[in-house]
């Protein structure tokens, strides 16, 4: 099977895949799709986030009854990270961010709410905590990120109860909002940002806007200190800077190259690698990140001890056969952000690759787009967009030169678009 697939891949490369010609080449050489009711295979998808839920939905959408799809997640419902900063700003609730699995179940996806205990890629088996073992023909692992709490001294289990990240939407988002609500006017909110790569490049800066938006209306004497380990704002820099200097003038103290390596939970103090100390009333630390723990347990982490390398033609792991890894957990291709939008595109690329392979055809490389909207208040939005395609020579996905860009300025039309984006992408994932 594997040898068969790699020889297929060589055929695709010989045809000049990645260029528009690849499409016509495939047309000329591939047999007509077979309509069949027999089962082609069983796909397990681990993780029902932007990547995994999309993969499951599109495996059914394109694969039909012939492909059995089982989606596993420990969470009984999906809570979106994108737009969750607005819960902190006060214009959305966590319920607005939440979607159930009923649409996927109606399509014929088997959804199991359970935790994955172990993945044995040699035996093609996944062990669940409560529901026993599940076998697969193809495995899709979309575990998102986990935090390297050990990189921040003092951020132990006890300290994590009060020093929140809220970088996975859910209870932490609600709790951070409560901390901001309890903070007296004139208090200080400190946000620390890790070195890139991390989940959602513009996310921390949007969060600063959302907290500032809340403070401006309710606690105008309060201050925000941003301790950024990076040399500058990593996404939409000039746009965020302008908003901070104009709309939130005098409220935000942005400090680049301030890498927080230690916290003192009792005094809510962040300490940088040079020993500078910043005391906060609300301390929000985004620790350095890595592929979700289950990826490591399955032996799929093979880049910098943090991320999962994949073949960008099929998103198949370079560490194990018949296993695909998606989303934030991957070692990103050049100029590819770790975003929910991008993970959704990964999910479709994987679904297409698996449908093609299971039908005995050669998978074609995928096009991908990215559009990340950031709310600078409750209505005005800025975006960054890009288009990505497969480069057959470099054997990776690269940004299409000349395409993509950012907003000219914050505007309410893009606020409307951002809300419609959320509705459409959630429906695209969960049907």
């Amino acid at each position, binding site marked *: 099977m594997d040898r068969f697939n790699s020889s297929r891949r060589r055929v695709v490369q010989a045809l000049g895949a990645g260029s528009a010609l690849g499409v016509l080449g495939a047309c000329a050489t591939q047999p007509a*799709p077979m309509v069949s009711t027999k089962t082609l295979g069983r796909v397990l998808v681990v993780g029902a986030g932007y990547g995994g839920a999309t993969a499951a939905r599109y495996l059914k959408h394109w694969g039909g009854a012939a492909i059995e799809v089982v989606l596993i997640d420990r969470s009984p419902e999906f809570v979106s990270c994108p737009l969750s900063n607005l819960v902190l700003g006060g214009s959305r609730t966590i319920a607005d961010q939440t979607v159930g699995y009923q649409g996927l179940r109606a399509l014929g996806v088997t959804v199991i709410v359970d935790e994955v205990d172990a993945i044995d890629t040699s035996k093609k088996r996944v062990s669940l905590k409560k529901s026993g073992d599940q076998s697969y023909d193809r495995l899709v692992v979309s575990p998102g990120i986990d935090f390297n709490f050990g990189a921040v001294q003092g951020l132990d289990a006890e300290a994590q109860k009060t020093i929140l990240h809220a970088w996975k939407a859910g209870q932490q988002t609600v709790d951070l909002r409560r901390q901001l609500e309890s903070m007296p006017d004139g208090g200080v909110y400190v946000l620390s940002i890790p070195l890139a790569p991390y989940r959602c490049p513009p996310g921390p800066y949007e969060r600063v806007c959302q907290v500032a938006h809340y403070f401006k209306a309710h606690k105008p004497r309060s201050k925000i200190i941003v301790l950024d380990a990076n040399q500058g704002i990593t996404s939409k820099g000039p746009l965020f800077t302008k908003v901070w200097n104009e709309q939130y003038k005098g409220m935000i103290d942005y400090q680049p190259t301030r890498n927080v390596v230690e916290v003192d939970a009792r005094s809510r103090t962040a300490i940088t690698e040079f020993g500078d100390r910043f005391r906060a009333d609300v301390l929000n630390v985004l620790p350095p990140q890595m592929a979700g723990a289950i990826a490591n347990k399955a032996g799929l982490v093979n880049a910098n001890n943090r991320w999962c390398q994949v073949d960008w033609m099929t998103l198949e792991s370079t560490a194990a056969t018949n296993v695909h890894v998606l989303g934030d957990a991957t070692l990103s291709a050049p100029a590819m952000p770790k975003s929910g939008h991008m993970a959704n595109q990964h999910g479709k690329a994987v679904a297409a690759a698996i449908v093609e392979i299971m039908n005995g055809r050669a998978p074609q490389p995928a096009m991908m787009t990215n559009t990340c909207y950031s709310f600078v208040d409750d209505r005005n939005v800025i975006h960054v967009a890009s*288009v990505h395609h497969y480069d057959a020579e470099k054997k990776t996905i690269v940004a299409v030169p000349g395409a993509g860009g950012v907003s000219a300025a914050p505007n309410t039309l893009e606020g409307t678009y951002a809300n419609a984006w959320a509705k459409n992408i959630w429906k*695209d994932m969960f049907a």
Partner: protein
Amino acid sequence: MKIRLAALAASVLCLAAGGASAQDARYLASVCANCHGTDGHSADSQGIPGLAGLAAPYFIEQMNAFRTGARQATVMHQLSKGFTDQQISLLADYFSKQKKN
């Protein structure tokens, strides 16, 4: 325009042959779904228009207007530049065959 027509003709031929291109079109079209809805069926057409059922020549014309700047946009003028004429033809053909919401 000649090139575009040629690309369109090629894609139509390809589709008529029932080759892999039928799948390529649906895979390519899924790239648009994040914002415009699955197979072009927008869940919030007041916010972002659906693409399902748009006439193919209209779709091509609009994409070209985004690319040249003849049609103002917030993001489509940036995204449209990432697609080839042939890809736009494939998309136009695919969305024209989807039922309107």
